[in-house]
């Protein structure tokens, strides 16, 4: 058999006879009949070009985020992606490689991880950042389990703000249930922000962590210094979750306010929304808790000739070495997406990231100002609370109805809050980024006026 050509009929019969089987069906006989499909209703085989055109026609019926003004966010954000990101990403040396079991052979991969860690460390204000995790939701899970370990498993409560992304909380529930950790959810106050006193009360003396998101699910920036103090007063670790990583270009990461963990989703750094994945989790903590940190670390060292080199450290605590005693069940990192984020951040630079974040903030403030002039049927849910690039908008109908009505007017106006549960009004979460042009804002305001 040629290695690059699939097995033909003759090869298949040969393999089956070696296995002592009569047919392919017999090979897969262990699959229950109930889950098998009895034939697919497909037209006869067509050539590649025909298929490409037919599927292209179908796909063109979709509205893409780039084809009409788009204000969708709620955890996944559209930002500029300079061409250099995909150019580096698609290099075969990076694109096809998996971290080898002798990782030091892949100096390029380790250098990327080292640079990624350095960037995350600077943005979060914490001295140690790991090589990355799968996504923001699992990063939150890891932060809660981490806190539980750091406090020796003696505190079984995890206090989590209701304004932490509801999907993240659902993922968290699937882990904490099995780990014997009880999650206590603290709703926001009437201004959409957490009240540190209520957080302190909920934590009591049994919480291993207090997890808050900033900017929170409603787009509102939390009072991080007060919340860190509330967590520490109760002897718990303070955990910050970030879903819109670009906010770290303008807002100080929680590490500088005493947070023990800053983690979250870094999709905003050069990773396309991509129907919800693959995305990129990050995790940073203080050096004193290094040995309880999930995942792995790349380190900088020198080789035997004294030349700068990179190595993999801390993987001794991962699952492939420690088995059941591993610190976490992550045993790798999200390498390719971490590369995208690294290239993106390095292309932006510190001042570029700040400019980009400032632009998101300024456009959001402009849209908020213009909406207040539209009339009484539209209002910002929490007008007094500071936001970064997202806010909750209340209109003349439910969020689900509004999204449909505004879409028919040619604007993807936001994500309805109707189905998420939670102590907030029914409306639309509206996200504004540097990708929203002045014309997009005009179209948004015009669509609201039409519905007033």
């Amino acid at each position, binding site marked *: 058999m040629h290695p690059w050509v699939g097995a033909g009929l003759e090869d298949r019969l040969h393999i089956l006879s070696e296995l002592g089987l009569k047919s392919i069906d017999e090979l897969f006989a262990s699959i229950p009949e109930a889950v098998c499909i009895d034939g697919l209703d497909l037209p006869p085989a067509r050539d590649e070009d025909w298929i490409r055109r037919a599927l292209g026609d179908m796909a063109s019926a979709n509205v893409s985020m780039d084809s009409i003004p788009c204000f969708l966010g709620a955890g996944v954000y559209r930002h500029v992606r300079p061409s250099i990101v995909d150019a580096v990403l698609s290099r075969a040396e990076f694109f096809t490689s998996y971290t080898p079991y002798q990782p030091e052979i892949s100096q390029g991969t380790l250098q990327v991880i080292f640079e990624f860690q350095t960037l995350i460390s600077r943005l979060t204000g914490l001295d140690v950042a790991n090589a990355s995790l799968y996504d923001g939701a699992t990063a939150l899970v890891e932060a809660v389990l981490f806190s539980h370990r750091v406090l020796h498993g003696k505190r079984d409560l995890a206090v989590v703000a209701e304004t932490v992304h509801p999907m993240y909380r659902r993922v968290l529930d699937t882990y904490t249930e099995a780990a014997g950790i009880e999650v206590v959810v603290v709703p926001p106050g009437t201004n959409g922000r957490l009240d540190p006193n209520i957080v302190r009360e909920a934590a009591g003396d049994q919480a291993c962590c207090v997890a808050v998101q900033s900017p929170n699910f409603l787009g509102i920036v939390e009072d991080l210094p007060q919340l860190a103090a509330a967590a520490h007063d109760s002897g718990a670790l303070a955990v910050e979750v970030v879903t819109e990583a670009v906010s770290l270009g303008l807002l100080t990461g929680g590490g500088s306010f005493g947070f023990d963990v800053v983690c979250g989703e870094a999709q905003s750094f050069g990773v396309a929304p991509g129907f919800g994945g693959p995305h990129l989790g990050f995790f940073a903590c203080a050096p004193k808790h290094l040995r309880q940190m999930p995942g792995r670390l790349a380190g900088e060292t020198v080789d035997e000739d004294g030349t700068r080199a990179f190595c993999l450290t801390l993987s001794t605590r991962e699952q492939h*070495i420690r088995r059941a005693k591993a610190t976490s069940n992550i045993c790798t990192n999200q390498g390719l997406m971490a590369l995208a984020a690294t290239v993106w951040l390095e292309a932006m630079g510190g001042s570029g990231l700040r400019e980009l974040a400032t632009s998101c903030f300024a456009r959001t403030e402009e849209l908020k100002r213009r909406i207040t002039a539209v009339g009484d049927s539209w209002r910002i849910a929490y007008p007094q609370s500071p936001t970064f690039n997202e806010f909750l908008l209340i209109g003349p109908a439910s969020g689900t109805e509004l999204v449909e009505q505004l879409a028919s007017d040619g604007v993807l106006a936001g994500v309805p809050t109707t189905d998420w549960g939670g102590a907030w009004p029914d409306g639309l979460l509206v996200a504004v980024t540097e990708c929203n042009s002045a014309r997009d804002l005009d179209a948004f305001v015009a669509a609201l006026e039409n519905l007033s």
Partner: protein
Amino acid sequence: MTIPDDLKYARSHEWIKTEGNSVVVGISHYAQDQLGEVVYVELPEVGAAFDVGDELGTLESVKAVSEFLAPVAGEVLEVNTRLEDEPNLVNDDPYGDGWLVKLSGSAEDEELLDAAGYGEFLEQESA
């Protein structure tokens, strides 16, 4: 491979030295050699109580992390705080400055081996 005569040994490779009503615990020369260069030692809290066979702490080398176990039941009286900054003492002087913890309790336990017994045990292990 040194195996001092005045110590007792556990099959999990800890050595035990009786000092009055307490015991000092470390890991054997063989154990540190198997681990390789120790880069971090995680020690228990003073005052914590352990049963025989409980995990006392962990030893992290450049290639692996291993637990060390309580060879006798007792309470932690003292830990070797020097290991925080000098974990290599476990390699350089496993029976001296590389000691791990001091436990209340007694080594009068028939499960423990003497030097000759531990030597035979190691031969069987490597056979």
